[in-house]
């Protein structure tokens, strides 16, 4: 299946060094995941599998990376071959994966559901591969993201929408940290819609978490840089349990 991400693997990998990811998103997510020793983990929408690699390095017993973008998976596979981490990388989430995982991590996946049906389908896919009691951590577009497109430019992003907080509305995501300038199409889903889709899929608890800036981040970028972002984060972090 062709994907708008097929030709963005190099860029996606490099976003890990952008300050908002390096000092805020990534440490927040990894701290939230905690000890992964012995866990079976799925990186749902893994892209270049950066989180998959980190989760494996943090002790996860088995890590599967799933993505529909062949371009992203090609990068992930080559890197895994070189580093020998032994990830399992797949473009198909077959029924063989049902109830196989203790944890599903889905970073920037839900914003690419274009309809309510697609949103529900993705949530159900995330639920069916988890064992009962398993955990999902996912990062959608923040329901209260700042509507001014330039608000996130200091962080290398623009979120452009004609109707910023309309359920199912298109949000153009510009990745504009020089030298990059790339647009991808995403969709906005309200907190209520996301909560209902997740609960309908079988998640009994849905908790919205807050970002934490790393100590290094405060030192490197300064308080003002983070104050603006933390007031109106562009992404949310949702922590769910399958019933």
């Amino acid at each position, binding site marked *: 299946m062709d994907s708008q991400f097929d030709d963005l693997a190099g860029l996606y990998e490099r976003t890990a060094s952008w300050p908002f990811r390096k000092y805020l998103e990534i440490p927040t997510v990894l701290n939230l995941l905690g000890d992964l020793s012995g866990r079976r983990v799925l990186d749902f929408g893994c892209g270049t599998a950066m989180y998959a690699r980190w989760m494996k390095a943090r002790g996860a017993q088995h890590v599967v990376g799933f993505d529909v973008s062949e*371009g992203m998976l090609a990068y992930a596979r080559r890197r895994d071959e070189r580093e020998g981490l032994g990830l399992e990388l797949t473009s198909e989430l077959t029924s063989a994966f049902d109830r196989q995982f203790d944890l599903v991590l889905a970073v920037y996946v839900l914003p690419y559901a274009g309809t309510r049906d697609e949103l529900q389908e993705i949530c159900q896919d995330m639920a069916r591969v988890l064992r009962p009691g398993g955990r999902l951590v996912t990062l959608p577009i923040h329901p209260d993201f700042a509507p001014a497109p330039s608000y996130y430019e200091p962080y290398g992003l623009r979120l452009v929408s004609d109707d910023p907080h309309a359920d199912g509305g298109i949000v153009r995501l510009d990745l504009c940290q020089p030298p990059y300038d790339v647009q991808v199409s995403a969709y906005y889903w309200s907190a209520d819609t996301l909560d209902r889709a997740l609960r309908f899929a079988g998640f009994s608890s849905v908790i919205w978490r807050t970002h934490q800036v790393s100590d290094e981040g405060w030192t490197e970028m300064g308080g003002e840089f983070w104050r603006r972002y933390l007031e109106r984060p562009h992404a949310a972090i949702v922590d769910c349990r399958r019933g």
Partner: protein
Amino acid sequence: MPPLSIAGADEGASVAADPVVVNAAAVGEVDADVRMDVLPSASALDTDEWDALVADEDFFHCRGWLASLDDALGPAEVLVASGRGGLLGGCALWDGEQTSGLFHLPDFFRDVPGPWGDAFLWGGARRSTHTELPTVPGRRRHAVLRRVLAAARRIAIEKDRACVVIAYMPLRRALEAADADEHACVLLHSAEAVQPAPAGGLQAMLASWRTHDRVRSKAELAAFGRCGNRAVFTPVTPAVAESAARLIADTRAKHHSVQGEEWMRRIFDSQRRSGVLDAAVAIAAVRADGRSSAVCVSYRFGRALHVRYFGSDYSFLDNDFRYFVLCYYLPVDYAAGRGLTQCRLATSALDAKARRGASIEPLAALVLLTDRTPIDAEAVDRHNRRFAAYVHQQFPSRVSGEWSLVAG
């Protein structure tokens, strides 16, 4: 008939090309979507980003292999296409060879009128007998191929070459590329042997064969052991490389190659520095006294195992089928044991490999004349049909389905 090698040991030698000076600014271009540049060597490529564009079958285009050639033979340029999100495609460049052999166009197409005696710009890794065009998958693939070929033609013009040739392309890939450039033509000129590696390894492969073939191969394997050989699988450590260089040089000397032990040592040293030797496995035939009678060196890339070098000490009687055991039977076992799905057996000794179950796949040259003079389409069609018919005649039950793309 063009030079289709059907006998003899694998040859993998390289000859240093004359350094080529390109004014990157003159051939470079920028537009809204794709930027074309010429890098002075593969060392400027990001390993993971470039290798993600390289197919499993196109190992000799990976950054590690290209960098090892640069290290051993001097730098060669790489044409790259970049988008606003990163690398999109590209192709290594070199000059071909001026002497008769595997990389000398006048030997290829004697029945098709063309400027085959002129100087060309070659695409692909130096002396690779399998070349594809590394390209991003998905919706931009066709446009990127078009831009890469157009840029290669401009570079050829800049260098006063008669055409661009990318030889030893899998036929399907050559036709895909030709579809992106209306002036390109595709000419069959070789074939390669490929052995699928079933999950059950060598035993599963043998079990799937006819009784006659199975009995013969088991006899060959038995002879290998009966002659006092023991197979050893090992990474290519410095000590293994030293021994392999000597054995490979012996085999090359037998086939009148001037590239001796020192040459192979240099090649392995360069591969170690580039990191590509980490992907290599040596399968050695070891005698009771610990001496190696033969070695095969192969490289893992994705889910393919690329069999590249064979060397043998001919002071040991050569009646133990060591070539087939090391270069054919045991690589299948090795590949299957590591989840690989195919062994790429190159273009030599096709007859013997086909008789041991290998599939024979078509290789073609993609040719783009710099002055856009059309090559006689009827002559091309006639040549391709004749070539395909010849291969069908040689390997009647072993030709892959891809041949039907031209056989008609």
